[in-house]
């Protein structure tokens, strides 16, 4: 043995070794790529293309919401939403001590910069060209990163096996109505794409008897509520000083709110008061 540590690393040996290694890597890479390009070129984009050229938008007039939760019930009935989940949830919000409380319906915001989509490891939730953030429970692995990501708490999880009904089980699963529900997957409001295909309003907007939820196509520049009133989206957003929830987070929601001014129904405070009075009598 010659000098200690005098081990030669010759270029020839090294290149030989590397050639074998690279050959293997290239072979594996090519095989992977063949499969991947199919996924990339066919499967993924086709999922993101919506059936029509629309930009769905929702406008919720807080001045009209009386907190009856008909929208939640209609949504639950239409999608067979499992118990303890509310895809559109009515919050009773008090911004500060001085301000009176108001009701705030919160569907999924269908953000244009959706944190949930960013964080999903498998593309089980994805943005569609019509603005809807879809949830694919055939693919969801249940890591719940999207729940952690969503600042609007708009996502729910099937912690156990959800109770099933025959009507729910009657149809095969489809992302456009998102049932039958399955254990261990995430659920959310999806703006009822199935209704939209048929030219109907989403269940919540169609049901609201106060006409508080307007829904429409931003490219139509018109939104319609359940009472058939259609208003110009750009006009109502501008004149009504529409705002979006947690705008400062940069999520670019597709749900706009009109401020709860000039209410024509009992405020949450008054409601509680009459309920209490009713209980006393």
């Amino acid at each position, binding site marked *: 043995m010659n000098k200690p*540590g005098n*081990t030669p*690393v010759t270029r020839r040996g090294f290149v030989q070794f590397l050639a074998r290694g690279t050959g293997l890597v290239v072979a594996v890479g090519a095989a992977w790529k063949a499969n*991947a390009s199919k996924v990339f070129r066919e499967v993924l984009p086709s999922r993101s293309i919506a059936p029509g050229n629309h930009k769905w938008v929702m406008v919720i007039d807080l001045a009209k919401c009386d907190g009856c939760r008909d929208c939640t019930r209609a949504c639950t009935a239409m999608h067979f939403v499992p118990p303890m989940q509310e895809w559109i949830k009515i919050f009773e919000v008090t911004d500060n001590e001085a301000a009176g409380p108001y009701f705030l319906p919160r569907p999924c915001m269908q953000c244009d910069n959706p944190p949930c989509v960013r964080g999903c*490891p498998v593309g089980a939730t994805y943005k569609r060209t019509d603005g809807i953030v879809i949830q694919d429970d055939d693919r969801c692995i249940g890591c719940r990163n999207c729940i952690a990501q969503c600042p609007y708490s708009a996502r*729910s999880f099937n912690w156990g096996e959800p109770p099933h009904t025959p009507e729910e089980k009657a149809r095969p699963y489809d992302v456009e109505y998102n049932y039958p529900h399955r254990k261990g*997957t995430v659920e959310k409001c999806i703006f009822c794409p199935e209704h939209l295909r048929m030219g109907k309003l989403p269940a919540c907007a169609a049901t609201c008897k106060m006409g508080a939820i307007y829904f429409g196509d931003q490219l139509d520049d018109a939104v319609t509520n359940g009472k058939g009133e259609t208003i110009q989206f750009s006009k109502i957003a501008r004149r009504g000083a529409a705002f979006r929830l947690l705008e400062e987070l940069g999520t*670019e929601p597709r749900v706009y709110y009109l401020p709860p001014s000039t209410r024509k129904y009992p405020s949450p405070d008054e409601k509680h008061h009459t309920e209490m009075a009713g209980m006393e009598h």
Partner: protein
Amino acid sequence: MEAREQNLLRTLQENTWRFYAWVGFLGAVLLWGLYAYLQQLRNGLIVTGMRDQISWGLYITNFVFFIGISHAGTLISAILRVTDTRWRMPITRMAEGITVFALCIGAPMVMIDMGRPDRLLNVFRYGRIQSPIIWDVLGVSTYLTGCILYFYIPMIPDLALLANVPKLSSWRRRLYRRLSLGWTGTEHQKALLERAISAMAIFIIPLAVSVHTVVSWIFAMTLRPGWNSSIFGPYFVVGAIYSGTAAVIFSMYVLRRVFRLQEYVQQLHFRKLGLLLLAFSLIYLYFNVNEYLTVGYKLEGTERLLMDRLFGGDYAGLFWIAQGLCVFLPAALMIVVLGFKRYHRFTIPAVVLSSVMVIVGAWAKRYIIVVPTLRTPFLPSGQRLPWQWTHYHPTWVEWSITAAAVAGFALIYTLMAKLFPIVSIWETREHEAEVEVPEAAPAKPLRWWKPGIVFPVLVLGALLIWSVSAHAAAPAKPKEIKTAAITAEWKALPVEANREPAAAENNASPSDERVALYTAPFLSLRRLFGSSAQNEQNPAPPIAVTATLRDASGAPITFKPVEFSLQTAFGVVDFGSRPTMADGRAQLVIKDHRYGSYPVQVAFHGDDEYAAANFNIKVDFGARPSPALPEAGMLIAPYATPHIAVPFLVFYGTMWVAFVYTFGYLILWKMRRPAEAAAIAQTAPPLPVATPFDAHQIARPTLKPTNGEMS
């Protein structure tokens, strides 16, 4: 063989009843955890205390904790090896073992947390490099591979030694012989091994830092109060090394007691590591102050609620216990014991006590990071939900699985300590020899960085870019609906000058700015060359709709209201009425942001003189923009985008190249071909060029005067 080595080998051979009892106990805990997990598999995560609001709990806490503990090996072994700290020799193997075993326990914790573990392979089938979860998969798997290699490579000489110990059973000797890869202890092999170890030590340090950084990014990449913090990366890395050091000290103490390793592990080691632990406790204290003061000073919105809950509310008890155990108490104790000479004799118990406090405190600290933030979202969904759905209380299933994780860690450690020598025999032996005979060795003009390595890196890089550049084809643009040309009933007016500011405003929308910040300087040719055509929507021109109201004879009907309305997908937009002028024409100018063609109805509702009449025309407001994903597409795209993929894949790809080089080339291929190597050595004398990356210089700085600055 010395007496102390005989003693060390005894740990491999002799099993007392205590050993069997201990293994039996750990096995029982593990089985109980398995039963709990089966319950969870059958019934779903409903058996845990997690619910929609607090959707991560003990499992994620354990994951972060164990990944943190795994940084022990990196610190003690790699950093101390690179800086050539001599006293590390007897404890490197223990530290490296902790790293491997903690990773083996930590990584499955996320799988246990999954709602659909049956779909685990979706992570590889559909993985999106934009997701922090995938960063973790990439990082942890690379790190685990690296740590196994880093645990295994320095053990090779010991395995060869053990293969020749006749007292061991034959299957074990066969195993050791197989694993020792033909190690005979020649100078050539030693040099190769040194080089492999040094290269691994260098690569494992940035890898370890990156792994705990991406673990922290799972949290820091959210918009949650308390997680939405730029300090999380280094905060987690320091916390990880801190808890890892504590784990090394604790395991050192236990192994010393159990295996009677007093000859190897001395008070010196506890003192040195105690000082390290003290240093890290102070750094960690600094990070804690930084984290909570910046948030607590401003008390912004929801963060205020979080601070209230941590410092004086629901979580105050656990918070202060965690802070006390994790930072204050150990720091104070070690300052007293290590700082004052009269207390030096308490070094071992005090340092071990501190490390136990740090380990427990680190776990509580992880819990404090994970749970209270989830409890405090922007929109708390607590209204009209039962109490259990908004508060988190771990169930027996979660506690059982957590106990099983700890037991599993202890079990692997125990069995591995029985199977492999827990103190590196050849390194401690060599270390002694070197201390006795500090002779100068000839310069080692070895370069492990050969020009040839550039080639595979380039190939791999090209492959990565090739694979990630497989963009999806842009969504096919549907054919534009051609509308029939309508006669003079409507026309588009020229775009008014005062519309321009609005258009400019549109282009400079905040989303655009933000996306540009992310993408413009980096690889986005489309942006660099300024073609934002996709984004640019021509402002819709104002449309003038003119209705002409005439009677049967064709004479204009004047000053009558004509109502204009437009049919949209869901309803009818009412534009109100306009009166007809003297020529019988009523004009409506529509200036909406509307695209596509729509039926417009002009209606005269009739009055005393004239009957009602209406007329429908189709008005074209201009082409609809082609359907596209929003501009933030880089992060939300369903396919890998190079902006995110290239940095990650290049970093971890480099690590894999390094693994292939050190293990595949140096150990597997090179070390087992001594004859060929010797032949080549004669024909190709190595060049006496020292590079900054010379592994030998780093491994043995004392041997060369030029390396003074390295150590």
